[in-house]
């Protein structure tokens, strides 16, 4: 039994699972499959059994369900017993990766290119898998995940320029901007819009060139080594700069840095203090604006020339500050992001009834494309009920999934998908005009 999972788990919170089933209906991968092998409770049971060595389990089969977890964290929020399901699954993925990590596959090749910031290789790795003949061949020689990858989107801008700014001005508030790989390489305009929104409010923004991917695609593939390397690289990119906060407009980067960075460095390691400080300094853009408001900074209002009805898809990884209490109807609907929505005159926010997951889940979208699209379709059902003119969000992964509307919306009908910060930047510009 060569492929038997043999590494031991550190987190034992699986012992607190009472298998009540509460997590089932919240889990996007369970709801799409309606098969408990793909449920949080099922995954926890597999990890528990594996850890206790009760039954011989086969790594490839266990991988199948672990890799179809989107790490959305909905089950963690639902669980009445505080089982750390996301942490347990990541730990399991790390062990599985050590067992099967040597096998070549196109998705792993793409990750390699991403880590080394080789845009051309990343682009070709993802594109090549979509050519039918190669897809057929690759299944044999270089395993590729099912279906097409998001790269079939036409609007990706691999060649666009990312705005680096390594000198700080004389404003009182100084922040670092953490772009994440997507708003750096693929949608750099969102970075531009974020920086405009900050500078227009009198904030100096430091944008280091050496920053890279937050590491989430790596740790969610079980590659803890690359995850830690990338984390340290990012810490160093912002080191010794006199900045009050580090801001990101990507909800998944914030999840990775706020939640996972401190979990995957040990308190007795030399780098731990730096990692923890970096992690605590980083805020998602909406929490940051609320923080500024608390400090008495007046956040500018903008105006859209044309009134626009929108919905805001709240990313699973977007979290409000613990002490947040909604103070307006927009904040009631979408949390802290509602504060900026309030600042955009002419923006009409419509509610989404269920706030389903978008189906992206980072590498999940690439490894289980068909399943991912099934989850996206459900998301669009509630979007269509609200019939907005645009869909807004604030996460790189969600943008990928929501923009990929082929086969979900009828014919050539398409709904524009934008980052809320881009709409805010636009409203600041249109007010001046």
């Amino acid at each position, binding site marked *: 039994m060569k492929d038997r999972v043999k590494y031991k788990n550190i987190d034992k919170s699986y012992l607190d699972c009472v298998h009540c089933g*509460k997590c089932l209906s919240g889990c996007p991968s369970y709801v799409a499959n*309606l098969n408990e092998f793909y449920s949080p409770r099922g995954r926890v049971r597999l990890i528990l059994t594996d850890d206790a060595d009760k039954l011989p389990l086969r790594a490839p089969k266990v991988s199948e369900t672990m890799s179809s977890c989107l790490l959305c964290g909905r089950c963690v929020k639902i669980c009445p017993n505080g089982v750390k399901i996301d942490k347990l699954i990541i730990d399991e993925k790390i062990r599985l990766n050590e067992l099967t990590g040597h096998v070549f596959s196109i998705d792993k090749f793409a990750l390699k290119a991403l880590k080394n910031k080789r845009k051309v290789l990343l682009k070709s790795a993802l594109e090549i898998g979509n050519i039918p003949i190669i897809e057929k061949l690759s299944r044999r020689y270089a395993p590729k995940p099912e279906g097409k990858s998001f790269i079939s989107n036409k609007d990706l801008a691999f060649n666009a320029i990312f705005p680096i700014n390594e000198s700080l001005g004389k404003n009182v508030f100084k922040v670092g901007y953490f772009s994440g790989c997507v708003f750096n390489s693929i949608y750099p305009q969102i970075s531009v819009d974020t920086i405009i929104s900050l500078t227009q409010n009198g904030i100096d923004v430091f944008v280091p060139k050496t920053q890279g991917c937050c590491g989430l695609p790596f740790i969610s593939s079980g590659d803890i080594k690359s995850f830690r390397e990338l984390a340290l690289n990012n810490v160093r990119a912002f080191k010794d700069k006199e900045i009050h906060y580090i801001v990101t407009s990507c909800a998944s980067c914030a999840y990775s840095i706020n939640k996972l960075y401190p979990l995957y460095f040990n308190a007795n390691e030399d780098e731990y203090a730096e990692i923890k400080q970096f992690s605590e300094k980083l805020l998602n853009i909406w929490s940051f604006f609320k923080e500024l408001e608390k400090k008495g900074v007046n956040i500018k209002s903008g105006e859209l020339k044309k009134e626009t009805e929108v919905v805001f898809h709240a990313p699973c990884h977007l979290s409000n500050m613990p002490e947040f209490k909604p103070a307006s109807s927009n904040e009631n609907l979408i949390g802290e992001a509602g504060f900026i929505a309030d600042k955009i005159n002419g923006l009409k926010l419509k509610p989404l009834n269920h706030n389903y997951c978008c189906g992206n889940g980072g590498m999940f979208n690439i490894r289980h494309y068909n399943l991912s699209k099934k989850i996206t379709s459900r998301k669009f059902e509630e979007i269509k009920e609200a019939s907005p003119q645009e869909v807004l969000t604030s996460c790189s992964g969600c943008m990928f999934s929501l923009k990929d509307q082929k086969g979900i919306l009828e014919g050539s009908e398409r709904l524009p998908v934008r980052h809320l910060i881009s709409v805010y930047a636009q409203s600041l510009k249109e007010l001046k005009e």
Partner: protein
Amino acid sequence: MMDKKLINEFEMLLGKDRVLSETEELLCYSYDATSKDFMPDVVVFPLDAEEISKIVKLCLKYNTPVVGRGSGSGFSGGSLPLKGGVVVSFTKMNRILELDEENMFVTVEPGIINADLKNYLSERGYFYPPDPASYEFSTIGGNVAECSGGPAAVKYGVTKDYVAELEVITGEGEIIHTGSKAVKNVSGYNLTELFSGSEGTLGLFSKITLKILSKPEANSLILVSFNDINNGFNAAISLLKLRNRPSMLEFMDKSSIESVKSYFKSDIIRIEGNFLFIIEADGSQAEVDKSIGEYEKILKEFSPVSLFSSSSTGEKKEIMEARKAISPSLRKYGDLKINNDIAVPINKIPTMLLFLEETSKLYNIPVINFGHFGDGNIHVNIMLDKKDIEMVKKGEKAKYDILKKTVELGGSLSGEHGIGLEKKEFMKLKYSDYYMNILKNIKKAFDPQNIINPGKIF
């Protein structure tokens, strides 16, 4: 071990996608919300009555047990494959087949989640009242099999009161139709009601028609606590006598209040006292306002420690979340829970609660109680440490004492969870051999080869 040929036949019938037979997959179907587990040999996902009939006929041919499963959230082991065999998962049969607005019925497949049905109806102005604490994830099929009830039972009754028609596949693989949408129906034995609460032992459901109501326009909650149990009891009895009786009358004892205190996040909700009630009034806005005023007036006569009423959606949600979290959050009192859902006549509740307190002291183990005051249904949770063998023995003794007392007080061994595996040895406390034989003969009539969920109830 199961005959490989049977698995092949299932794959021929349903396609490989709808048959699970690998260990890793089966493991995920080996448990429910009890602390027992049994591995099935195969899990199948039918899509209609014809397929279920064929599945049962194959099981007959191979003499293999067959057990239905919804979300596997039961508390009595109803969906556990005690003797291995085939688990029939209904999760892919989750459609709403018909909304009959003239007669006010909805027909569904058994795998639909209770909350999904509630939402569907609510959007159209209708209301399906039964609300087990698991309603956000348990299936209607499971609810009917266990005759689930919840807080709404005090005003609206339990699942069986809403089941009008059933399509059932018997243990011989035959498809039968029970009941009628006609309100009056005396034509032979009432099999619909027999199947409701039959714990999946008489057949497998493929279609369920439920009675629905018009949705109440509004509701409000009162949270009230007492130090003296008798005061609380007398206050509650007075509320139940009203013509506009509460649509919910839940209680928590001191230990269950403690276990969910952290779920109350608002500053306004302050919990004091030894005995807490969550009371709801529903109806038109005017009716709700009138009822809440009336309830408050009555409650104040019994010197409550705290009284708080709310019509805000956020606060109401918070209160109900806390109520639903009690059962799973008891984990901190012990890793083994003996979960009893006894029901006694309402006027016996104080006697029973007193007895529970004494039992807890006698055996020196935590016994945590909460439940549905309005229908006498008390969730008695004996919390134990799995590894402490002495303690587990004491827990079993306590369980026996409690169930015996329940029967003495004229109560029922199970209000809504069912007997299943968890309480079958206690049936003799309540019923004679002669009575039990009648039950067994009824099962035989539907399932002569004893392949449908064998080993449950008796």
